[in-house]
């Protein structure tokens, strides 16, 4: 089985609030000086791929888009965890691209990689959380699609997956080729690489392709939208105490939650 795992490098989502800032020129988070990590759910996707490799012997290729120099750490970690090869699409503008454009680029890269049975990626990226790349990619590749998968097993040429739903789980049978987006689960906690694998990763194949090296995407595809503005709502540092009797406090709280779209 040939598996491709798409990894996105993002600014550490656990950054202290004080270090979070938007660049007014690009309308994206300022990356400079901040630690970069592999997007949380992409790591789960990689772990799921590696478990499939452990169980049924698959080849796992890590695919990422980014300015070549910046993604080195992500690629090395993926290879150290157990991916067999890596492909980097060198795109300096990667941090600015939104899901629709990313999906198109990934489609081109995957076509160039060749035959693929399964594409795994995180259910959402830790930064823009658009949740579109997986389904768009499935359409572009003509593959089956299931999102928010928390378990994957291969059996008799089919994939048995468990999707996490709003109210429980769905167990599905999927016919490859398939694109699955992965959510987190205890069973797919990303593994810590063994040191000899960290060192062995240096010898694994990493191909870097420029965007110009790739063919244009096939099919129409969804249209990109324009980012008009990105604003950071000011959060007061002080706690707002809700006054009154319990009934009043409760009412005030529920109202605030509704205002915050949490209810």
């Amino acid at each position: 089985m040939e598996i491709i795992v798409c990894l996105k490098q993002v600014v550490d989502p656990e950054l202290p609030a004080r270090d979070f800032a938007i660049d007014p020129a690009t309308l994206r988070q300022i990356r400079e000086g901040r630690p970069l990590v592999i997007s949380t759910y992409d790591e789960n996707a990689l772990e799921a791929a590696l478990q499939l490799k452990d169980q049924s012997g698959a080849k796992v290729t890590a695919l990422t888009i980014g300015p070549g120099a910046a993604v080195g750490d992500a690629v090395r970690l993926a290879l150290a965890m157990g991916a067999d090869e890596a492909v980097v699409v060198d795109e300096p503008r990667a941090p600015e691209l939104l899901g629709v454009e990313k999906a198109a680029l990934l489609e081109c890269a995957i076509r160039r990689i060749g035959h693929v049975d399964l594409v795994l990626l995180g259910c959402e990226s830790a930064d823009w959380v658009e949740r579109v790349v997986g389904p768009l990619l499935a359409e572009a590749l003509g593959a089956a699609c299931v999102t928010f998968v928390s378990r994957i097993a291969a059996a008799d040429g089919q994939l048995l997956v468990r999707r996490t739903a709003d109210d429980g789980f769905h167990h599905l049978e999927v016919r490859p080729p398939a694109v699955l987006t992965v959510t987190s689960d205890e069973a797919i906690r990303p593994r810590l690489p063994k040191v000899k694998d960290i060192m062995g990763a240096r010898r694994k194949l990493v191909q870097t392709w420029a965007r110009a090296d790739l063919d244009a995407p096939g099919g129409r595809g969804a249209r990109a939208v324009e980012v008009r503005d990105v604003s950071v709502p000011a959060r007061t540092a002080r706690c707002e105490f809700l006054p009154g009797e319990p009934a009043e406090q409760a009412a005030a709280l529920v109202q605030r939650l509704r205002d915050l779209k949490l209810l």
Partner: protein
Amino acid sequence: MGEVLIVATALDGPLARTSLELLAAARALGPGAEADAVLVGHGPGFAGAAETLRRHGAAAVFRCDHPALTAGQTDAVLAAVEQVLRVQQPRVLLVSADTIGRELAPRLAYRLGAALLTECVEVSAVEGGGIVARRQIYGGRALATLAAGNGPVVISVKPHAFEVPEPAAVAGKVEDVAVDIDPAALPARVREVVREQAEVGLEEAPVVVGGGRGLGSVEGFTMLTQLASLLGGAVGASRPPTDAGWVPVSWQIGQTGKTIRPALYIAVGISGATQHVAGVTGSRTIVAINRDPEAPIFSVAHLGIVGDYREVIPAIINKVKEAQGG
């Protein structure tokens, strides 16, 4: 040939509440905007779904009833909706960003060559025919304003971003559409649906209610569990309750427990020691309920209630039920 078409689902059950929220989103696109609905589903409860949609303001309801249109069968829903779309060709397609909608919206946008706006919390139409939407990004730390120009656009709407609108029927009809779906040919087929409310993992739950030493006993957690269920979330704990054996060790949140980043964290009877707080600083909104106004938790909370949880929590539960029941 309405401008706006919503995707309403009643898969294996009654009409989803989020489908009604879409009607409110449709109204936000313009006071006079009329919304049609494509209704997909099967089974008990499906019979009244179309009427409910009409009652809340849907004009034409295109009803697709097929045994394959059940919980989790995105490919079937996709086929049915696409069939209706090709005929109706709406300008705007509104989908709820729920389990099915998350898969549906991008795939439909791709097939239609439409603009794609997902996880929106606000939508509006602008002069000249464009659509503007707002969504949260960076874990809720920022708000993005996006614009799709003229041309078809698919919008997925975040659940609970809009309220179910007041009933306001408009002229319209219910039309049954025969859909042609071969269940065996679906690339992804649901074999089993397991409905388990309690299984939402702490680390994925959008809402977490945490209990601390201040609860006094394990009984306090019963109340918290009730609240969490109502809010669609999970229950966690600081270290003392897990030490005391009141709750499982896996519930512990903190430096040696789980790190959570929910949209809402409610800390009940938790003092706010660094050990615990380290596990929740990523929460978007922190509400603290504690008897001690000097408790350190209030220095990291956004909303605070000083009081006895035994009185406050039941009051909150009542108010939440009220808000949801309506």
